[in-house]
């Protein structure tokens, strides 16, 4: 090799290495120092958000556009999860040292040490479930609205064809109605594989279990109660009877969430246990029947509390170098009338003082909320009163075991065993 060529090669390698290093350092974190402790005058804010069929990137861009217009120095970039969900993505970003400034999604209590405490101000306390979400006394997330779960959407034509005029109040009545719907030629209770199976059973159980013990998850964390000896066992027995009597699709485990939605909206199935986020999808679908909704029946027929949780909850990462700007944006997202209504409308959620023209189905969900005596936390709880990370996945896996011949007793024993070895 001639000296000149060799020198060029070495120079090229050094230049490439320098470029690569420069590129790495430029991309690290992606933060822009906003000056001092973080003035809102100049900041690049990264938002990690939950993406769904209705909560698209476009939706979030439109949501923050007025804030950016009012704060010319602030630039907001929307980031979709790159892992299975927001929580897993955030974990990876924390490990990689490049977490976002704000995050929106269902997060476990374990992540709270990485989040900035929200100020003890009234606007934070007024957001739905801010108090229930406290971990060790700290408020760390503020939601835009109230997302209702444990409601049953139904095909009004199917109910009419089956001769059902009164909505069921007890689980037994619901089972009897499902049998009549099956006789009328419908798939009585629509379900699916993926996360749907466990979530639906959770929506059946929570109003029953949490009604008398709103802090049930907290007590389970301390080992004071367990699944096997709670009303979970009665709920699972009901669900197993549905499987045995083919009141749920026999091929349910081969269906995805979207398949379940398609089946229900095509008029093939009669009921669909889901949350209020299903309302916009049901409203927008072209269908030959009207969709109604009723509260999840209870085991004894007593009026159950509505279970819910914060919708589109926002938190600020402690690592953000733009704390002030991030807090300004969070306040805008949970207090600005236009922004909050946009968030509520997108998922058909509710919040007192933030009304919007709602569809008849949405109004029906609102009536259920108004009529309920109390509200309890949904899913796997909130804040200190919540299950360990991974509980929903484990519950889902075990509940799906019912379709493969497991008994409710086996399922609950497995869940208790998992819970005990994972309790915080």
């Amino acid at each position: 090799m001639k000296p000149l060529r060799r020198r060029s090669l070495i120079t090229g390698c050094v230049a490439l290495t320098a470029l690569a290093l420069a590129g790495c350092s430029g991309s690290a974190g992606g933060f822009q120092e906003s000056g001092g402790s973080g003035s809102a005058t100049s900041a690049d804010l990264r938002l990690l958000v939950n993406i769904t069929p209705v909560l698209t990137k476009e939706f979030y861009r439109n949501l923050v556009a007025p804030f950016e217009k009012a704060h010319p120095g602030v630039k907001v970039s929307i980031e979709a999860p790159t892992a299975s969900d927001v929580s897993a993505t955030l974990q990876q970003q924390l490990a990689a040292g490049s977490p976002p400034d704000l995050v929106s999604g269902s997060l476990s209590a374990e992540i709270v040490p990485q989040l900035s405490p929200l100020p003890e101000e009234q606007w934070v306390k007024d957001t739905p479930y801010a108090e229930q979400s406290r971990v060790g006394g700290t408020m760390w997330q503020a939601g835009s609205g109230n997302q209702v779960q444990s409601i049953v959407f139904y095909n009004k034509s199917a109910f009419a064809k089956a001769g059902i005029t009164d909505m069921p109040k007890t689980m037994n009545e619901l089972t009897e109605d499902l049998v009549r719907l099956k006789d009328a030629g419908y798939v009585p209770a629509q379900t699916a594989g993926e996360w749907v199976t466990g979530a639906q059973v959770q929506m059946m159980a929570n109003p029953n279990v949490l009604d008398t013990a709103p802090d049930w998850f907290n007590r389970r964390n301390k080992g004071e109660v367990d699944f096997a000896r709670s009303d979970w066992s009665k709920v699972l027995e009901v669900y197993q009877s549905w499987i045995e009597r083919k009141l749920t699709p026999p091929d349910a485990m081969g269906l995805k969430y979207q398949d379940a939605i398609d089946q229900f909206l095509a008029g093939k199935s009669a009921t669909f246990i889901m949350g209020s986020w299903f309302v916009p999808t049901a409203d927008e679908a072209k269908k030959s029947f009207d969709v109604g909704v009723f509260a999840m029946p209870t085991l004894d027929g007593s009026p159950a509390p509505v279970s819910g949780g914060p919708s589109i909850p926002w938190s600020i990462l402690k690592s953000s170098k733009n704390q002030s700007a991030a807090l300004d944006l969070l306040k805008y997202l949970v207090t600005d009338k236009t922004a909050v209504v946009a968030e509520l409308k997108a998922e058909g959620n509710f919040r007192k003082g933030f009304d919007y023209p709602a569809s008849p189905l949405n109004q029906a969900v609102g009536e259920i909320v108004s009529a309920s005596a109390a509200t309890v936390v949904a899913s796997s709880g909130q804040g200190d009163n919540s299950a360990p990370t991974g509980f929903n996945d484990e519950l889902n896996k075990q509940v799906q075991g019912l379709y493969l011949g497991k008994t409710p007793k086996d399922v609950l024993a497995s869940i208790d065993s998992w819970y005990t070895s994972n309790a915080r």
Partner: protein
Amino acid sequence: MPGSTPAPGGVRAGDRPGPAREARPAGAAPGSGTGGRPSTGRGRARLSAFVSQTVLLAPATVLISVFMLLPIALAAYLSFTDWNGLTPDPRRVGWANYARLLQDADVGHAAVVTLVVTLVGTVACNAAGLALAVLLNRSGRLTGLLRAVVFYPYVIGPIIIGFLWSAILGANGAIAGLLTSAGHSPLPFLSDPTWAVGSIVAVVVWSQFGVNVVLYLAGLQTIPVSLVEAARMDGATRWQVFRSVTWPMLAPSVTVNLVLVLVGLLRVYEIVLALTGGGPAGRTSTFAFLILSESFRTNHLGYGAAQAMTLTVVIGALALAITALRRRAEQAVSA
């Protein structure tokens, strides 16, 4: 014994003729040149060669160190901690994660699923790859097109493949629709655990075997035509030619294909994620799927790292074992 006494200067039986030694003037010290200041010239040349080699190797060394060795070392360290991926200071737990791994029923089940997918998939990928390579190892108008068609699935991302086949095999999918419209009951491709594992194997083979076809084609094209022609002139049938000429000569390709497919299938994750999500009831979780679930859904990164290290060791051991086992066959080709 004839030939037992070597002639002066001759080569004894069994001796291997080595490279001719460089002629050196009598009395010259090793390493010294023959011209003026030869030592300095050779030293410069060696230094220059060393610098060139170092510079050329540096990028690859840095990349391998940063993106392979460092993560493996980090995973090995994390496997002895209870890190949840969120706290800044992982707590050391010794061998606890590895002890738990031995008692974890989910790990045992995932290992069985992975074993089935790997064994059946490796055999199927290689059988299909070799068969199609033999068929496509000829010139023709459509050969190029067919080779591209066969290779195409390998180009598609595994997540897309998973969703594509999910739309075909799902309970609401294309095949179920066809069967229902023909008056038959749908088949439980994804809803029954046994069928679901079978579906994963089939989809994995479909997505992978294109690369085996290409590798076997490359191997087939290195076989000297004269050998095949000689065998045919000796009256060998096609099967005899394949068994006695083609197959032995393909030994290096077989080794490469076996190792590549085996290692790839031991790490199957994306197709499982998109096709079954590990369900129903976690019964189609592969080892790689379990590692990711444990690490990022349950926040047990330390335990997930222990699982990952175990898989790394298994993959390394299997790859080495296959390579060693295949060495004899490859040496036969060299001979």
